[in-house]
């Protein structure tokens, strides 16, 4: 009994997704969370919950931008940009969709869908480069 009490159980306050691993899945799960937050708020009138949702949605949008920027600046290299000339524009458009004119500033499920579609386009190129 005593030994059970004194042996601590480890509880996680870790990030849930692989850290230091390049994968558009990280940006996608945050974008999916944003979409879920927009849906949750749409059928809710509790002012505290809505305020909380606004804050969290801004923070998750910032995380989407962070994950996309890491891919853009750290994962993709010059030969990738030569082979896929649309990449720069894709990243620019995707991070804008996560910004003030997109999911960060608005409660528009359409923007969240557009953001997810851009992430999917980036993911498709990412997978091609991984397979190469």
């Amino acid at each position, binding site marked *: 009994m005593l030994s059970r*009490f004194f042996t601590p*159980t480890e509880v996680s*306050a870790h990030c849930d997704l692989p850290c230091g691993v390049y994968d558009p899945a*990280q940006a996608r799960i945050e974008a999916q969370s944003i*979409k879920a937050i927009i849906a949750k708020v749409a059928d*809710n009138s509790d002012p505290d919950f809505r305020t909380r949702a606004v804050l969290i949605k801004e923070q998750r949008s910032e995380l989407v931008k*962070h994950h996309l920027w890491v891919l853009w600046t750290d994962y993709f290299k010059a030969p990738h940009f030569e082979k896929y000339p649309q990449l720069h524009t894709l990243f620019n458009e995707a991070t804008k969709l996560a910004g003030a004119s997109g999911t960060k500033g608005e409660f528009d499920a359409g923007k969240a869908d557009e953001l997810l579609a851009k992430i999917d386009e980036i993911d498709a190129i990412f997978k091609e480069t991984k397979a190469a």
Partner: protein
Amino acid sequence: MAVGLGVVVVRGRSMEPTLHTGDRMVVLRGAPPRMGRLAIVRLPPDESGMPRPLAIKRVTGRDPSDPRRYWVESDNQTVSGVADSWTHGIGSLAREQIRAVVLFRIPQRLRLPGGRRPLQ
């Protein structure tokens, strides 16, 4: 669920600045969750079906669309990969997913024998 005391140790950054890696807390297993307090929770498996580890979260309220369920959050929303009720695929938790409530943090100066201090 049996009620009983236990000790947990925190790993990770998702509860900063409240808690840090290596912090130890006394918890009461099976106790009812209290709003605004910390709890040890069992999050649902991730999208690939892998079980998530026991996690420490703050119970921030009831699920507005189902008052029988609890909304849990990480204190640190800026850390990459934060997973809580706001995360896609998680949402609110059922009562049985709240495994224990946190009673208090053990002060570092009163660490139990053999307890390691975190790197400063």
